[in-house]
Structures are given as structure tokens and as C-alpha cells.
């Protein structure tokens, strides 16, 4: 356990010394400031909009912009997770950084776990801060609050932690560049599949919905993200709820209740494959 903490702490110290935290902090403040400006102007102009009968404009705008912020949070969290993990095995081995560590009496799976924990210790608080920050901006500016507060945030954080695990697994088999490209392509494919699921739900296309559900199980970070979007408007009904479900950030489509359980099992599977692959890799 002390080895895990030592290596995780080493990863955190690297992030600190390499000014990762400073850069992320400045850019996040920039993102939240722009988001606040956008939300402020949206709600300021809301009085000039005559919404259709039965549509609560304040809820519609709030849920849509907060859904957009959640997408942004997932994307930024993913960027952070991927860049912190994409070269952990092959990349570091090619640069000669890994060998001195692996020779020490620590297990290779311990090293993987520690590097994942180090990345998660950066990404999860980051996702939490951006999620809560954007929720406060929408809530305090537009007086709209999500139907569920905690679960969507936890799901977003879990989605990013899962991406970090995928990137770590990729780092066992692929060079840093190939791994980064692969993870971002999978990430993009997942988002497209989720959007197709939403469109399929709106058009009542069972085929599209089924395809998206399969994608959500194949890459469950997407399922978690869609579930998080669904959670923020789960109690919103009527025409407002229906219209939100049609939008890209309305969470009309979900992978179902088992996606959370599957995400945990999927993580265990990724960890097992990564540990096995790493144990057999010549360095």
C-alpha cells in the first residue's frame, strides 16, 4: 500500500511541478467566466422570448446550458485524464523512465493502480469543481437547479476515471501518440453514439436506440454521461421535458439502470487486462 501511495504521490508531484495544476486552474477560471457570461446573457434575454404554451423557458434554458457545461466538463476531464496517463507504460519505457521503477520490489499491477489513482486524484476533483461551479452559475443566475445534484456529478467523475483506465490500458500496448489518438477516437465515437441514441429516441427509432445502447455498454463512460444528463431532468415532465429529451443535452436516451453496475465491472475487466498485458510485456 505504501508503494501505491509513493507512486501516486510521485505522479501528483509531477503534475504540480510541471505546472499542470496552474495551467488547468487558469483555463478553468477562463471557461467558467465565459460560461457565466453566456448564462447571464441568456437569462437576461429570456424576457424577450415568447416560448410555446406549456414550455417553461427558464427550465429549458437551464437544463440545456447545464447539459452543455456537463459535456464541457466531461471533455476537459477526459483531456486531463488522457494526457496524464497516455504514456505510463510504453511511453515511459521508451524514454527510460519506467525501468528504474519496475526493477524495485513492487508489483507491476501496483504501479498501474498507483498511476491510475494519481490521475484520478487530479481529474476527479477537477470534474467535481467544474461541475459544481457551472451548477452554481446556472442556479444563482437563472434560478434553475438540476433535479438530482449528486448522482450526475458522481457519474461524470466516474466516466472520466473510466477514460483514465482506458488510457492506461492503451498505454500498455500502444505508443503514446497512438494511444492518445485511439482514446480520443473512442471518446468521439461514444459521443456520436449517444447523440444518435437521443435522435433515435426522439424519432422513436428502436434500431438507433438499440445501437446506441450497445455502444453505451461497449464504452460505458458514454452510458454514464448520458445517464448523468438524464438525471438532471429526470423529474421534468410535460412539453418542457419532451423538448429537452430531443436536444443534444437532454438525456432522452439512457443505457438503462445496469449501466452503472456494468461500468464497475468494465473497470475491473480493464484493470485485469491491463495488469495481465503489463505482466507479460518485456521492457
Amino acid at each position, binding site marked *: 500500500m505504501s508503494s501505491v501511495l*509513493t507512486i501516486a504521490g510521485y505522479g501528483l508531484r509531477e503534475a504540480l*511541478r510541471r505546472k499542470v495544476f496552474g495551467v488547468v486552474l487558469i483555463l478553468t477560471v477562463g471557461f467558467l467566466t465565459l460560461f457565466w457570461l453566456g448564462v447571464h446573457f441568456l437569462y437576461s434575454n429570456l424576457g424577450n422570448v415568447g416560448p410555446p404554451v406549456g414550455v417553461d423557458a427558464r427550465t429549458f434554458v437551464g437544463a440545456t446550458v447545464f447539459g452543455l457545461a456537463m459535456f464541457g466538463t466531461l471533455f476537459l476531464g477526459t483531456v486531463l485524464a488522457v494526457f496524464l496517463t497516455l504514456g505510463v507504460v510504453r511511453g515511459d519505457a521508451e524514454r*527510460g523512465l519506467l*525501468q528504474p*521503477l519496475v*526493477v*524495485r*520490489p513492487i508489483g507491476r499491477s501496483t504501479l498501474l493502480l498507483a498511476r491510475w489513482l494519481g490521475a484520478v486524484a487530479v481529474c476527479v476533483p477537477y470534474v467535481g469543481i467544474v461541475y459544481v461551479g457551472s451548477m452554481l452559475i446556472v442556479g444563482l443566475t437563472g434560478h434553475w437547479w438540476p433535479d438530482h445534484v449528486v448522482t450526475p456529478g458522481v457519474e461524470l467523475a466516474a466516466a472520466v476515471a473510466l477514460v483514465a483506465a482506458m488510457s492506461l490500458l492503451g498505454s500498455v500496448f500502444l505508443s503514446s501518440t497512438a494511444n492518445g489518438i485511439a482514446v480520443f477516437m473512442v471518446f468521439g465515437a461514444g459521443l456520436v453514439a449517444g447523440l444518435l441514441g437521443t435522435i433515435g429516441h426522439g424519432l422513436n427509432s428502436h434500431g438507433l436506440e438499440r445501437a446506441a445502447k450497445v455502444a453505451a455498454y461497449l464504452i460505458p463512460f458514454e452510458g454514464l454521461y448520458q445517464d448523468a444528463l438524464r438525471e438532471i431532468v429526470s423529474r421534468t415532465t410535460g412539453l418542457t421535458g419532451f423538448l429537452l429529451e430531443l436536444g443534444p443535452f437532454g438525456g432522452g436516451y439512457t443505457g438503462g439502470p445496469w449501466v452503472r453496475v456494468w461500468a464497475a465491472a468494465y473497470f475491473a475487466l480493464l484493470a485485469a487486462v491491463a495488469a495481465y498485458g503489463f505482466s507479460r510485456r*518485456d521492457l
Partner: protein
Amino acid sequence: MAALAVRGLAKRYGAVEALAGVDIEVREGELVGLLGPNGAGKSTLVKIVCGLVRPSAGTAEICGLRAGSREARRSLGYLAELFRFPGWASGDEVLELHQRLAGSQGGAAERTELLELVGLADARDRRVEEMSKGMQQRLGIAQALVGSPPLLLLDEPTSALDPVGRRTVRGLLEELRGRGISVLLNSHLLSEIELVCDRVAILLHGKLVTEGSPAELAKPRGVEIETDEGTRLFEGAGREDVPRLVEELVAAGRKIYEARVLTSTLEDTYLEAVGGESS
């Protein structure tokens, strides 16, 4: 018990046979030099011993423990040929990290001793990225010594060092031998190996082609005697033949000015063993 015992060690990378059944032993407190041209299998052998590479066949044991096992890795220090420490860390932080991972209880006193040993006492707080290549290499040697392991595996430890740095490392190796630490040293520098090693093993195409002490490997090449009629070479003669040869020449009326016993250097032996392969 041998500090390192390698038996029939083989490693194949696809169609390439990096090691083809090597037997080698490093006894307690012994300094063994491993020579061979590039691609001979030296680094592969060292990597198998420290658990970075899995062998295709054969066994390697460190102090009786299976090489690569966690217990065996506790007993060794390793300096890779191509290694790097994180540039953002100071020399002291690098050693502290390795102390923690190795489970060393030496604390700051051990770090100070090691940094002094490799001549980096003044660079304790200097970041690795601000160190020269030679300084990083000496830090690598200090890192390998963390926790006082009984076996040290050094892969080209002087490749980036200037002559003064090489002499420092040579002195360090002699000091380690004095402490009873066993060392397996990979190097291209024959003179270095000849000066410090108790035994030398030469690898070629993944096989051990010759092994012995530098003195054993330095074969006699004959005796050269300078007389009033010029210099004469007696091929095949050794030191013990000199009195007889001089006596015979004097009896034949020759004046003797000098007699020299010629021995081949380790370089000659090496070149003979590898057949002119580039290293």
C-alpha cells in the same frame, strides 16, 4: 551461494535469438565484466536478471531466489543502459523515491553518503534536467546503490562520463568490491574491464564464447630478446623460458641487452573471440 547464477538462459524475440543458452555465475563479492559487440545479448541478459524481460528458457537466480521475483528484486541494484529520471525532481528526491520503493530505512544519511560517493554532494538539490549527462549517470549509480543491495547490475555505467568521471566510477567499483558487493558490469571499455574486473565473460550472438580472469585471458605471445645482432622473437615461449633462452644466446656468444615477455591484451583476446564484429 552465488550472488547470481544463470543457467541455460535463452531469449528469442520473434525470429531473433538474443540469448542462446548462457551459463554465467557471479560469486559473492566478485566483479564480473560482460563484454561483447552490440546485439550480443548483454543487455538482454541483465534485463532478464532484473525482471524486465521474461526468458524463453533457462533460469536465473539472485542469491538463490528466482530472478524477477519481488524477493530477488529486493537484493539487486540496477542501472539501465538507457535510463532517465524525471527532470523535475532533484537528485535528493530521486534517491528518496527509490529508498521508499526499495524499503530502505537509510533516510537522509544514506542519501548523503551515496551522493558523496558519486561526487554529487554539491548537486543534492539540483533538478535532474539541470544536470549534465555525466551527473545523471552518476546519480543513476547512486540510485542503484540505494538500500545496499548485495548484487549490482550496471549496464554501461560510464558511457556518458569523461575520463575523470570514469576514474571516479572505477574507484567506486573497487570500493564496492571491498564492501563485498557483487557486480555484473556491462561495458564496451575494455581497459576499464581489464582494470577492475575479477573475471571477464565475452558474449557473441547470444552465446558465451570465452570466460576467465583478465590474467588468464591475456595469453602469452612469446619472448622478444634484443641482442647485438638485433631483436629475436621466440614464439610460444613464456616467462619461465627466459633464463634458458638467455643462457643459450650467451653461450652462443651473443650480447643481451633486453628480454621482454609478450602477452596479448584483453583487447587482442576480445577481437580474437568476436572475430572482428563491430561493437
